[in-house]
């Protein structure tokens, strides 16, 4: 399988955006904020986080709403929301392409890619963050269970192995299987993390290109 690819700032009108392709999955995330918030959603000392996921076809269903909730639990601890109180931070994720390998794992493969693309878009937008999160999808050998692991690639503990901050599992598994899967997940996360850093470096390099003669 070819390594994942990403593009930062593909959308000129959004404050920050990223497109990410991993195998059959292509996602596009955009960030707008801090912007004016509806009085109903206003939080006195924090920014309000609005996450919207749009499916590739049809209208938003329970599946997208569930994914939004999972994504929120992974992303919101990363963002320093007190920096912009009484504002709105809008995160929109468009599923461009997603192949349904098996119905059970669809959500999990999507979740791992969604976390990566949203973190990239947040970094692109310059939203104040406590760290960068990388996520990976791991399926157990017999296909009985699927996991998504999220490790912090920067801003975690001193040792990268300390950085497990997000787990979402589905299916039947025991402790041994989980530990094995988490080890694979950690390796994949660190790989994805390095790629993410490179994409950001590329983007900053492009922004600073004017310094050349």
């Amino acid at each position, binding site marked *: 399988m070819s390594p994942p690819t990403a593009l930062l700032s593909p959308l*000129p*009108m*959004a*404050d*920050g955006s990223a497109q990410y392709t991993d195998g059959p999955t292509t996602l596009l995330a955009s960030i*707008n*904020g*801090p*912007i*004016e918030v509806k009085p109903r959603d206003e939080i006195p000392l924090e920014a309000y986080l609005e996450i919207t996921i749009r499916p590739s076809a049809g209208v938003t269903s329970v599946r997208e709403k569930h994914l939004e909730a999972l994504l929120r639990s992974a992303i919101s601890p990363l963002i*320093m929301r007190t*920096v*912009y*109180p*009484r504002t709105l931070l809008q995160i929109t994720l468009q599923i461009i392409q997603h192949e349904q390998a098996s119905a059970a794992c669809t959500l999990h493969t999507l979740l791992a890619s969604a976390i990566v693309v949203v973190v990239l878009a947040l*970094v692109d*937008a*310059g*939203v*104040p*963050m*406590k*760290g*960068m999160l990388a996520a990976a999808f791991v399926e157990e050998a017999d296909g009985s269970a699927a996991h998504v692991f999220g490790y*912090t*690639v*920067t*801003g*975690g503990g001193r040792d990268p192995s300390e950085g497990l901050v997000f787990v979402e599992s589905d299916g039947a598994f025991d402790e041994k299987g989980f530990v094995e899967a988490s080890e694979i997940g950690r390796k994949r996360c660190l790989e994805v993390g390095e790629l993410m*850093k490179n994409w*950001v*470096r590329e983007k*900053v*390099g*492009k*922004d*600073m*290109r*004017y*310094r*050349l*003669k």
Partner: protein
Amino acid sequence: MSLVVQVHFPGETLPPLEDEKKKATFKVGPGLTHILPSTLIVNRAGELNIDQRKHTIWMESNGKRYVASQNDAIIATVLRSTSDSYICAIPSSNSPVSSTSQAVLPHLAFSQATKKTRPMLHQGSVVYARISLANKHIDPELECYDADSGKAEGFGELKGGFIFGVSLGMARRLLGDAKKTGSLRLRQRKAEAERRGEKYQDAGVDVSSGREVLEELGESLSFELAVGRNGRVWVHSGDPKTTLCVMRCIQQSEFLTGKEQRQLVKEALKALGQ
């Protein structure tokens, strides 16, 4: 010729500051979180800048959404007038006026304004103003005069002309920030080379100011220009063709090197028939 930018990522803890004179207090700028007593954590991906002379430290990165910060000169749009002040919108690089943060510009915050003689601004008027108060909990306040002299010094209503957006990094470059930080980095690299006992070799980096496009345009065309730190540029010239040429050149030179910018302007001027 290659550009090496050392990028720091959110969450990275910076090594303790090397202070030449000790005791000096550093001012912590955007992109960094200060945790007492002296830990600095990066919260925005970008390049770290340290000015040992002015004792400042900040993260340099490009962006599109402007957040008000004190003493920034910005281009704002008047929304409406109240009994003692104008309510203005501070647009960012790409945003329409309606979705942006609001600011207060008192009627008396103009040079030589009194209760009887004050500039009449209407809805949609554009002003070049300085942010006199910025706090995350309250709306920012604006002033249209120089804080030191009390004179207008270019602040005030921008009459006529044309407005367009550029990225925040580009706006700062047009205002000459890149020239300052560029010479800062050059000095640092020279000091490092000296410390290693080598002779400094010019690699062709940081010699360009990032606003060659303006220098080149200014030589052949006559126009007025105002750049706001909120990523808005105002151009005024007698001829719409000239105005549009200036806009196109500035917008297209975002990712170009100094030489390429000059080339772009030359071609644009040729097309304009100058």
